């Protein structure tokens, strides 16, 4: 089925699932300390944006839809561009008993913003749900269209 509605909702679900994986990665590494002079874990963010289509693909999509979309790259859903490390500085905690502590007794933890991660997790979940609702709505529109002219005498 080459309907753009289903493809758009699917792309949104893919992106939000990937974002959730990135959040899980951050939270899982939140308390992994790094030794002195060792490169530790840096919190990451998923970079996503609208899916841009090339001129040929757009012309093909316009021909399939039967109408022209004038905005460049419109109606192609979302896509993820990749994972980018944030510039968050490490969280320095004074723990002289920790074997990873440096000469001053400080341990560096990744600068994961817990509240921010939790808020982003809830937001990601809501956007995913919205995409599912969008898909179901498009599906019920499709099924309604199947009812046209049904059981006609």
């Amino acid at each position: 089925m080459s309907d753009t509605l289903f493809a758009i909702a699917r792309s949104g679900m893919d992106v939000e699932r990937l974002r959730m994986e990135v959040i899980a990665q951050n939270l899982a590494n939140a308390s992994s300390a790094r030794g002195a002079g060792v490169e530790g874990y840096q919190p990451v963010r998923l970079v996503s944006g609208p899916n841009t289509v090339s001129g040929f693909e757009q012309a093909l999509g316009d021909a399939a839809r039967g109408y022209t979309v004038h905005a460049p790259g419109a109606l192609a859903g979302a896509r993820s561009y990749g994972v980018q490390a944030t510039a968050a500085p490490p969280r320095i905690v004074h723990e002289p008993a920790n074997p990873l502590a440096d000469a001053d007794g400080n341990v560096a933890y990744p600068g994961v913003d817990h509240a921010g991660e939790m808020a982003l997790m809830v937001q990601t979940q809501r956007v995913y749900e919205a995409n599912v609702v969008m898909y179901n709505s498009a599906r019920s529109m499709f099924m309604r269209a199947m009812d046209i002219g049904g059981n006609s005498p």
Partner: protein
Amino acid sequence: MSIDAIAALSAAQAAAAAPQAAAPAAAPNAAGQDFGSMLLANVMHADASVQAAESAVQAFALDGQAPPHQVMLALEEARMSLHFALQVRNRLVEGYQELMRMQL
């Protein structure tokens, strides 16, 4: 099957159209395409999506690595394709029966 009968009927009625064997998976939306091959292409599309859903479910049952929403989307797409093909067939059979009931 009655679909073949209908396809033969429509092909016989379209005398001007070139006699065309059942070409599988013809180009969609091509002008001058007869109804039978269009129907066949649609049925094959539905079959392909059902097979894609089946392989997605198999992959999910084997390793479970695929995201569950992709499996469900494949299943729904297969269901919608099948439903569409079924509705087209229902309309066709209705039309055929309407012709059969015609008093001459």
